[in-house]
């Protein structure tokens, strides 16, 4: 079972590196979206530091959503998805491997870029560490929840827009507790409870989302 999981993960990473600038674009979008705020609001350091957690988190949500459409779309178009559902192991495993690959190619680069943006937004070192921890717990949840949307929109035209409508409302809890953790620290409180809730979301999403995504994929190949 682990062997099959790693085999699919390896294929997905291989495909991601060869066919695209996907993760590069996601990171660029993330950077540009955050950089727009100082231009729009003005370069006052206190205000930027005040809004930084929310801005970085919202930009991360949108950036991670950008690449979701392609999670299953290419496999759906070339027939690979049918074959993937016809393998001698649970489809949930395949979905989980694809989600892991999505996180490794989008979530992880976002986390790596976040310190740069934090400096740009005048965040201090203490809040930066909490930002990174909250992103580390939160971005996998984004990939997990997003996979359901990506599976549901297969076969529809304008899937990309539809995904945002389906998925963004579900991202709200992650946003609240992710940005909330940083707010708490800058307000002098502990972020422990926020981070624990984020961890709880991750633990709940880890089995539930692949299961729901696999169910949606079975629907998609039936048509």
């Amino acid at each position, binding site marked *: 079972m682990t062997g099959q999981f790693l085999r699919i993960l390896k294929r997905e990473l291989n495909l991601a590196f060869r066919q695209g600038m996907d993760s590069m674009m996601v990171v660029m979008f993330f950077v540009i979206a955050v950089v727009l705020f100082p231009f729009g609001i003005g370069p006052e350091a206190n205000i930027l530091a005040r809004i930084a957690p929310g801005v970085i988190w919202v930009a991360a949500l949108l950036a991670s959503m950008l690449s979701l459409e392609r999670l299953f779309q290419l496999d759906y178009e070339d*027939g690979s998805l049918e074959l993937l559902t016809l393998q001698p192991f649970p489809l949930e495993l395949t979905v989980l491997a694809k989600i892991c690959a999505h996180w490794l190619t989008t979530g992880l680069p976002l986390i790596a870029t976040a310190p740069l943006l934090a400096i740009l937004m005048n965040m201090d070192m203490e809040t930066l560490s909490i930002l990174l921890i909250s992103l580390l717990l939160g971005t996998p949840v984004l990939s997990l929840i997003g996979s359901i949307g990506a599976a549901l929109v297969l076969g529809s035209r304008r899937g990309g827009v539809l995904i945002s409508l389906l998925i963004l409302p579900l991202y709200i809890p992650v946003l609240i507790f992710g940005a909330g953790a940083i707010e708490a620290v800058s307000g002098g409180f502990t972020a422990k409870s926020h981070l624990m809730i984020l961890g709880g979301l991750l633990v709940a999403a880890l089995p539930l989302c692949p299961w729901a995504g696999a169910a949606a994929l079975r629907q998609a190949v039936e048509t």
Partner: protein
Amino acid sequence: MTQFSGTELICYRGGRTVFRGLKFTVAPGAALVLVGPNGSGKSSLLRLMAGLLQPTSGTIAWGGEPISEEPELHNQRIQYVGHQTCIKPVLTVSENLGFWSGIHGGGTDLILEALEMFDIGHLIDVPGQFLSAGQKQRVNLARILASPTKLWLLDEPTTALDVSAISKLEQAIEQHRQNGNMVVLSTHSGLNLSNTITLNLGQYAVGWEEL
């Protein structure tokens, strides 16, 4: 003797009943050829057999056990070739095949053998995007050779193939059957196979007036 069979199958798709009361039996070493006019449900039946679709009513069974009870066990037995070739443009032929055969526990020697069988050994390091339609279909068929299973479900396998490739396919199917395995295929161009059973789906079609 393990048989692959279906009884009293009804397939309802896209607002119409495609076929009704269909039954079939495939014994080890047998080949079932599905014929019938366009839209008579050949592809739907193959997808039912693969478990991609669920029948509206009726059961498909392997050795008496309905396949819907143990889908993963059924997946271990089948190789399905559909209308699409499942070839990733950015992966080479050997990477494309290696992934699928690896899942079924097939080795590199089987892949090489399968590629030789379809005369595409020289394409092994060519990325999928540079293959022609016929070459893609050859690779797709090599995929099922590279990971041996008991039942092949081939939906129009001769699409885009030239005469020599079709005769290679006939050879491959005969060899597969001699090892006691089964083949179900749909075709319009009449493959030259020995002792096939023909199932005409036209006779199970439901007239529009019966809806």
